[in-house]
């Protein structure tokens, strides 16, 4: 029992990341009909937004501190972040400590802009070309973005810790009445799960309850008719692309404390997110979320020791295996709509 709960919990945070990326991918696919291989790169850029933001916060100038001396007896030179000058030491340190959550504020506009620029500058020209061309050009773009990040930030992972307040772990088992220390779950992963649930909920609410969302949904169903009604649907779809980029970016920002960002993290997630989208059903938003969590949890179940003893290596291939089975038995995916990319 404890083991099962633990595996479900473990699956949730990975599943949240899959769900968020797959949600963005599906949004782009459902609105613009473009298969975006650069979506993983957007996730990665989001993560590096967090890195950049925390670097901006810790920008410092050197002052000579007379009260301390180094080992030669000279006055010690100390780096003082500008934030200390602005807000005083305690507040400044607190802001730096909370760099990752705060960088959300910084990431959203940046990612919206990146998404907007990508759509207007490149992807717009590919609507009338075959899907293979779209895959290829976004694949090329992903390589370029990845290499640009690598040039500026280097190839090594950059540790970006969560705020001190969330550093520990929650003894989840004790709360449910099991023995203590059986089910331990880091606070940040809980935050990540809640955060992604909020984002997913917000995206759905936005589409469901606002006029803008209604128009977008109408456009997804029948783009031409909406255009005939005198609505500039292209413009709205461009904004949706920006939104999808922001969702991927936020997934990346919040993921940084779980895994230190490096330049190829996007590609690692991209392959899996595509599988997630296909399992959920091309163009289906609930399908993407469902499949994301489902595959995340299945993956963590497959890495249980008991399972690995019977079927060694299952944890490595479970996601792909599920995808193959689903694609062959339910070609439309779990919740795919009829008529959307069925061949």
């Amino acid at each position: 029992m404890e083991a099962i709960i633990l595996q479900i919990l473990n699956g949730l945070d990975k599943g949240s990341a899959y769900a968020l990326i797959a949600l963005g991918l599906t949004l782009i696919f459902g609105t613009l009909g473009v298969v975006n291989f650069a979506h993983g790169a957007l996730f990665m850029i989001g993560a590096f937004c967090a890195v950049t933001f925390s670097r901006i916060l810790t920008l410092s100038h050197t002052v000579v501190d007379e009260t301390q001396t180094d080992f030669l007896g000279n006055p010690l030179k100390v780096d003082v972040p500008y934030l200390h000058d602005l807000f005083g030491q305690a507040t400044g340190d607190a802001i730096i400590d909370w760099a990752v959550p705060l960088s959300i504020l910084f990431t959203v506009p940046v990612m919206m802009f990146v998404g907007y620029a990508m759509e207007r500058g490149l992807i717009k020209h590919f609507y009338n070309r075959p899907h293979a061309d779209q895959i290829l050009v976004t694949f090329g773009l992903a390589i370029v973005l990845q290499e640009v990040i690598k040039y500026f930030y280097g190839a090594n992972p950059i540790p970006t810790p969560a705020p001190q307040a969330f550093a520990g772990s929650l003894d989840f088992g004790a709360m449910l009445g099991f023995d203590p220390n059986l089910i331990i779950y880091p606070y940040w992963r809980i935050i990540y799960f809640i955060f992604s649930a909020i984002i997913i909920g917000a995206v759905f609410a936005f589409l469901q309850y606002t006029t803008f969302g209604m128009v977008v949904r109408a456009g997804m169903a029948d783009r031409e008719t909406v255009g005939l009604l005198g609505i500039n649907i292209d413009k709205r779809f461009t904004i949706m692309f920006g939104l999808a980029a922001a969702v991927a970016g936020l997934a990346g920002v919040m993921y940084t404390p779980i895994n230190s960002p490096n330049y190829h993290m996007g590609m690692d997630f991209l392959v899996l997110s595509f599988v997630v989208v296909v399992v959920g059903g091309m163009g289906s938003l609930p399908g993407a979320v469902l499949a994301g969590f489902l595959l995340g949890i299945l993956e963590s179940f497959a890495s249980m020791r008991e399972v690995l003893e019977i079927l060694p290596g299952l944890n490595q291939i479970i996601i792909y295996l599920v995808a193959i089975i689903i694609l062959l038995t339910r070609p439309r995916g779990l919740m795919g709509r009829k008529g959307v990319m069925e061949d």
Partner: protein
Amino acid sequence: MLGLNKKDLQLMLIVTGLTMLAPFILNPFPESSGMAQFNAGYPDLMQRFVIFGIFAIGFNLLFGLTGYLSFGHAAFLGVGSYGAIWMMKLVSLNVIPAIFMGVIVAGIFSVAVGYICLRRSGIYFSILTLAFAQMSYALAYSVLTPITGGETGLQIKSTDRPIFSSLEEGETGRANLFGMDMRQSFELNIGDWLFTFNAGYYIAAIVMLIAFYVSIRIFRSPFGLMLRAIKSNQTRMSYTGLNPRPHTLAAFVISGMYAGLAGGLLVAMDTQVGPERMFWTASGEVVLMTILGGVGTLIGPVLGAGVIKYMENILSKINKDVLHEWFAFMPDGLEDFIVFLVYPFIGKGWHLTLGILFMLVVIFLPGGLVEGGQRIGKWIKNRGKAKDTGGSTEPAE
């Protein structure tokens, strides 16, 4: 001749000439000059040119003719490599059975994968092949370690005793062709130039020429026409009463066998294999090669493979000091500025150049470098003509 028409025969002869004279062509700069680092005429790189050429030709047979974009082709290369190295470890150090084994194993594997993946087309096909390749990679890395050697991969060790070999105690076997060592080279010094003629390269080149010939024949055959019909309109083809599945499967398997052939040759040249050969970036690389060179053209994939392998091996070696040396004739400030501008695109950043080049090709030249060449050729021709006819025509009212 050889069942080729005049144009194809010309192409075949040009390719034959180029591959046979490659040690000369790829070493145009004298050894002692500063440009010597652009020389690509060393055996290891030349072997890679032709082997990846084979791989890309095979990929092009699938993608170029049928339009099915496989994102997991490296799996067949990897499986072929494993087949070949086991043949060398257990049966014979001769490369011919090893290469055949690679082709056969990759062929069988591609029948299985193709049978499943070809039920779907478009993006689903791409993702299914990707899933299979990633699965093979993950398995080779973990559970199949007894067969694949896991992370360290497989090499020919001094303890390997193939059945048909006469190795002395403790001697490490070497790949050979009836006693001729793959690493055997004949070096020719002419003045300041050094040309290396490597046995392994010539064997790989001959295999490549055969593969190229077969691909021309497939392109021109009724089977090739059928595949192109599948690409242009599969539904119409089914309505005319032709089942496209067996044809696509045949193309998939042929393409997989080409990949296996390339894998077998790679093993024949360096007698080692690791699972990273199957990673999906390796599959992406062959896609890049084919698109860059020109998808659906005969010579394009070979060209693309050459360009990418050249960039990977030569462009990546250039570092900052070399750049400073090149631009030393400029004033200091300007020199630093130019180096600062150029540096991100070379050396370790060669992937960036590759990505940009690839995007430009996809956006502006869907036919790849071959189309670029044709356009330039046409432009030069038309420029000559334009003077005679007076150029522009008046629009009709």
